[in-house]
């Protein structure tokens, strides 16, 4: 039984990583699209970011030096990622539910990181873990773990309630949405209950982590906790195949679309890629397009459909 739980956990982690990378690669391999940016673009010059301006506000902008304002992007991204600033600004009713859920997940992710570090240190330099460091880490992951799981459960329950009761959400809610939130509540609920209810003889958290990493089936994980771990692991594996993988999508929607204001420079990488796309042979069927599958994009767009009738 323990071995099955380990397989599920390790397998799910692998599926999550592979699934997420595959999704990211799929998006990254899409062709460079036509520009479709939305202002404000935070990597613009600071004085322009304030009002949402672009380099187009300068006469002869192409002769001016371009500076990438990394600080501007970071200043936008950190509150957006950590605090969901956009949602706070535009949809407060959703933020009060979504923020605890997401922040809870961040804390859970942080807890996993802390546990891995602790488990590693405990094996490599056990003498260091006896003192303040060990106690400090123990308290830290305990606090982040419990608060993260509780926040995530509360947030998921609040989101589920809103999905079921708010008219504007109900219309668009499908069984999958309810299932997803329900799964979070169930998995994290089992984890929480499993930790709270585990007996005094149960293995410690770090021991469990070490056992999973070393596939030590001699460690007896309490049933409820094992169930919670397995459910959470399966949820993790499921995420890359759903819209919940928006942590991947968001990277592209912001960096490749909303903020992609890079102008075309003669001979640059974009121009080379565009040259390839112009050799594609579209098959759009409308007569005015004139794409019969043999003409390239370049040929199609340099043909004037109004000339056809004249010949």
């Amino acid at each position: 039984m323990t071995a099955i739980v380990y397989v599920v956990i390790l397998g799910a982690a692998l599926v999550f990583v592979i699934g997420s990378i595959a999704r990211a690669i799929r998006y990254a391999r899409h062709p460079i699209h036509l520009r479709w940016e939305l202002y404000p673009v935070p990597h613009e010059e600071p004085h322009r970011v304030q009002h949402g301006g672009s380099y187009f506000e300068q006469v002869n902008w192409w002769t001016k030096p371009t500076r990438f304002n990394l600080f501007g992007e970071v200043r936008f991204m950190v509150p957006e990622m950590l605090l969901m600033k956009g949602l706070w600004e535009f949809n407060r009713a959703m933020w009060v539910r979504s923020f605890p859920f997401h922040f809870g997940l961040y804390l859970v992710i942080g807890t996993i990181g802390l546990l891995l570090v602790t488990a590693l240190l405990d094996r490599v330099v056990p003498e260091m873990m006896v003192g303040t460091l060990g106690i400090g880490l123990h308290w830290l992951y305990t606090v982040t773990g419990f608060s993260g799981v509780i926040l995530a459960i509360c947030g998921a329950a609040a989101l589920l309630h809103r999905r079921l009761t708010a008219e504007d959400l109900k219309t668009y809610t499908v069984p999958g949405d309810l299932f997803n939130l329900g799964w979070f509540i169930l998995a994290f609920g089992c984890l929480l209950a499993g930790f709270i209810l585990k007996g005094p003889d149960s293995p410690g958290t770090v021991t469990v982590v070490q056992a999973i990493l070393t596939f030590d089936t001699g460690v007896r994980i309490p049933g409820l906790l094992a169930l919670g771990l397995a459910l959470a692991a399966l949820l993790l594996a499921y995420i890359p195949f759903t819209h919940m993988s928006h942590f991947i999508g968001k990277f592209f929607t912001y960096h490749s679309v909303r903020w992609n204001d890079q102008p075309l420079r003669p001979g640059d990488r974009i121009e080379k890629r565009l040259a390839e796309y112009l050799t594609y042979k579209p098959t759009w069927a409308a007569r005015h397009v004139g794409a019969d599958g043999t003409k390239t994009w370049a040929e199609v767009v340099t043909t004037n459909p109004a000339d056809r009738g004249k010949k």
Partner: protein
Amino acid sequence: MNEKLRPEDMSREEKKPLVHLDNEDLMPLPPPLDDPAKDHKWAPLSAQAREKFECLLDDTCAVNVPHPKTPEEEKELLRKFLSGLDKLFTRENNWTFLQPLVLTMEHCAKCQTCSTACHIYEASGGNELYRPTYRSEVMRRLYFKYVKHGGLLSAWQHGDIQLRWPLVARLIELSYRCNLCRRCAQTCPIGADNGLVAHELRKLFSQEMGIAPKELHDRGSMLQLEVGSSTGMNPMVVKDNVAFIDEDTTERTGIKVETPWDVEGADVLLIHNAGEIMAWPENPGAFALVLNAAGITWTLSSDLAAYDAINYGLWYDDAQFARVAIKHAEAARKLKVKKIVVGECGHAHKALAVIADRILTGDLNIPRESSMTLLRDIVMSGRLKLDPSRNDFPVTLHDPCNLVRLMGVVEPQREIVRKICPRFREMWPHGVDNYCCGGGSGFAIMSGNNFPDWRFHVSGRKKLQQILNAFSDCLGPETPKHVCAPCSNCKGQIRDMLAYYGMWEKHRILYGGLVELIVNAMEDVKPGYIQWEWH
């Protein structure tokens, strides 16, 4: 009151519209238009239109798709729709927008944050049909079912939808109930883009099924590619008209104005929206006067399509879009100008400067810039003697979406207005958070059936509210007021809407472009370039 709509209702077989709007349902307007009972009654859609066309969506009909005559024809239309849907998601056919489209399809969390940002949804009184995600949700379900070939599990995860001809007919219309202003996308926490969905649907209908509003296609991009301009002006006619404008401007200003044509090696190739030449000749006249006074070497081009900056393909068809953009660049290359400057036309700005940037490669990559920045530099440089007291009337500034949110040209026009209009006041919100005029994405030129009623009552309502609020302290007819709209399409929509609500007759609210305000303030010019009369 309409029953609660669901995405699957788009497939309903009944040959009747899904929703009906009454004035009482709409977002309230401020005084003096605060009584819905006194608002104009909507012109009903004619029985003839309903008989001939698929008008199954709401109270109007924008595209006029004929009813399929036989079941075979209906089947063929469905086949084409599916084939077009599939092509939207292939790199060979849609490299131009594949990535943002797929991201939008796969990551919407249906949180409805975008809804409150949409002026159409808000103005409709929150009608479900106009919610930005309504259209997208239908498209998303089609994507997972027919493009990704999802089965039962996918339907459970993403929702199901039945593909029937009424759904396609309604979707054609629904793709023309969005101004493509992308205010919704700006607020999306994930970066999904409902405006893009409407754009891509329009492309599918045009590029695969040959369906588009005649104002955009037959009388728009096709006419431009055939005779040179969607106004129907050929090079000879446009030159005649501009010569007349020169004479008129000379007479009105007391300064000799001459527009140069086809000057090789000029610094600037100026491209106007040719609608200005026809409807607002004071705008190209003012441009000529200002550029001459500033000592700029400039020219217009009489090449096919190069004297009309419009590019309607931007709204519905990538091939038509690219063709026109290339014509513009070819004219500039032929004249060996240093740069192209786009006149007061928002969508032409975005089309040529931003979107076409990844089409105009090699020697077609001629620098392109906004007339806003050029005018700002002229005004701020002191090359013109300006007397702001000549513009001593309340002025508010409309931000064309294509110029601000979609291109980031926000401050130049403001710097000018702040300098020359002492009684300037902002609309709220403004800049990149602005609201569309309601005429965006082609609506301003679409006037078939009773479509104007819809765009005045619904899509333009938020802008009207903003204008009335901006002038709330001086609404009386004793104070002439000016809405500065540096975009031809926006100007057309604002003109039509102000006229519809009698805002000039009753409240002396006029509208116009930016460059006219500059000329009106020029000391060397005879006073009164802006004529306080309705036009």
